[in-house]
């Protein structure tokens, strides 16, 4: 029984079809990586799954609730079991790191303040930021912000963790640390994770299943080995990093040569 299932999802922006009849099942306790180039519809699919936008048609059900046709109250109930770390971290700039992590605990639970402090400390310790709780987001480096966003996503012990481009813009060491963290969370908490990325190394390190998006459609879904064996030209192109519109070097060289000649010909 899949925990998230997307059925025939169609999304259009101003008549332009961004997702075209997409089907995807995400199994509990697994790390599913959503792979795809820029503009392939990854972020759109993510926003749909989080209920931030409404699709043109199709449905998405999370833990048995159809979030495209449910009330705001039901949607919020579903959202409490999802932790999200946004691409830009999206930490609240007016709050300290501790308060950022504590926000949902303070407002959605009736826990005592001392318990909340303990949970916040634990979550920050998991991502290695236990000593930085008093700092504000603008005082942190990019990598620390991303990790803090993961800590905030973990605050309510979610069943589903959604990470949007966790390693984009990070140096390889921090990106690798983040990968290890995601694997650690899966092993320790049996968390279901949906990770959106376009970094191949990271994807093949952490994924149980990889779904590859292209032009609003799912090109391939499967384990790492199944994807490596996939012979679809677009999949091969993505995995082997072949440019789609290669610059024609001989043509460019002859063009430049002619330009130089014409410049020299002038007195």
């Amino acid at each position, binding site marked *: 029984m899949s925990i998230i299932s997307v059925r025939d999802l169609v999304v259009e922006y101003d008549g332009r079809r961004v997702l075209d009849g997409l089907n995807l099942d995400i199994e509990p306790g697994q790390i599913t990586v959503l792979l795809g180039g820029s503009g392939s519809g990854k972020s759109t699919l993510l926003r749909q799954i989080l209920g931030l936008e409404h699709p043109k048609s199709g449905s998405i059900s999370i833990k048995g609730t159809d979030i495209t046709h449910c009330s705001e109250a039901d949607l919020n109930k579903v959202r*409490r079991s999802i932790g*999200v770390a946004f691409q830009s971290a999206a930490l609240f700039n007016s709050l300290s790191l501790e308060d950022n992590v504590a926000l949902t605990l303070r407002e959605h639970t009736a826990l005592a303040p001392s318990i909340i402090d303990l949970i916040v400390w634990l979550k920050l310790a998991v991502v290695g930021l236990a000593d930085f709780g008093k700092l504000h987001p603008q005082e942190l480096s990019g990598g620390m912000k991303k990790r803090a966003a993961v800590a905030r996503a973990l605050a309510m012990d979610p069943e589903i963790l959604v990470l949007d481009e966790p390693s984009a813009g990070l140096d390889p060491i921090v990106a690798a640390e983040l990968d290890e963290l995601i694997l650690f969370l899966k092993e320790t908490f049996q968390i279901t994770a949906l990770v959106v990325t376009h970094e191949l190394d990271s994807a093949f390190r952490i994924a149980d299943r990889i779904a590859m998006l292209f032009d609003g459609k799912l090109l391939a879904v499967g384990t790492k080995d199944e994807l490596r064996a996939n012979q679809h030209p677009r999949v091969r192109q993505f995995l082997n990093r072949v440019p789609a519109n290669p610059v024609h070097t001989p043509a460019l060289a002859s063009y430049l040569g002619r330009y130089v000649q014409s410049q020299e010909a002038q007195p």
Partner: protein
Amino acid sequence: MANVFERAGRETLSQLDYVGSLNIQLWATLRAMRKALPLIGNRHRWHAAVHQMLDIGVEALPMVALLAMCSGFILAMQGASELRRFGALHYVIDLVALGFTRELAPLLTAVAVSGRSGSAFAAEIGTMKVTEEIDALKVMAFEPVEFVLAPKYLAALVVVPCLSIVAGLSGILAGGLFMFFSTHLGLPLYFRYVLTSIELRDVVAGMIKSLAFATIITHVGCLEGLRVRGGPDAVGRSTTTAVVRSTFLVIIADAIFTTIFYFVGKT
């Protein structure tokens, strides 16, 4: 020719769309406002509202008072230079007292608050939009209208009329000082004249106006913030639009209210 009609139609539709969004936002905020009230609401929202009250009200107090005193002097001097020719210098008292309670105190306060706080609302919410903080609020099962807008609106409704009272007192005091220096009329006697010329109806009219102005400034500022699409440059543009639109709408509303009070007062 068709082009002109086309453009006029499109412009009209976009303005109607704006007014419609403003209305929807106003009702949504009013519905969420119960949560921001002390004792019966959510105490975190009430704390935020108190914070906003300090920000919108207390910090603007010196500026509004000084602004009103200068305007009081200007009004008294301009009035005196004409009224003196008819030997009717004592009418300056009525001019300043009525002018400030009915008209200038709410209007000056509105202009000051729209410049200080209306722009700040647009910038704050616009930045939250750009950095995905609004989306983060939604996926953390918070209602942005309740979380961000309701405390601001509550604070403005409490604080703008208070500021308006301070502005009225400052302006009338400035008129008294002018009368003292030009005709040696004692301040106690001046205030007794002021009290005889003002009726309760004038004070109520001024308060109604300042409540309406507070509504316009908060909602235009917040709506401009929420309509931000794109990057940091859009935030900058939204703050400018917030100030221009709210000042414009405040003056339109003032004209409407003054007309209503004029005809109601005649009967």
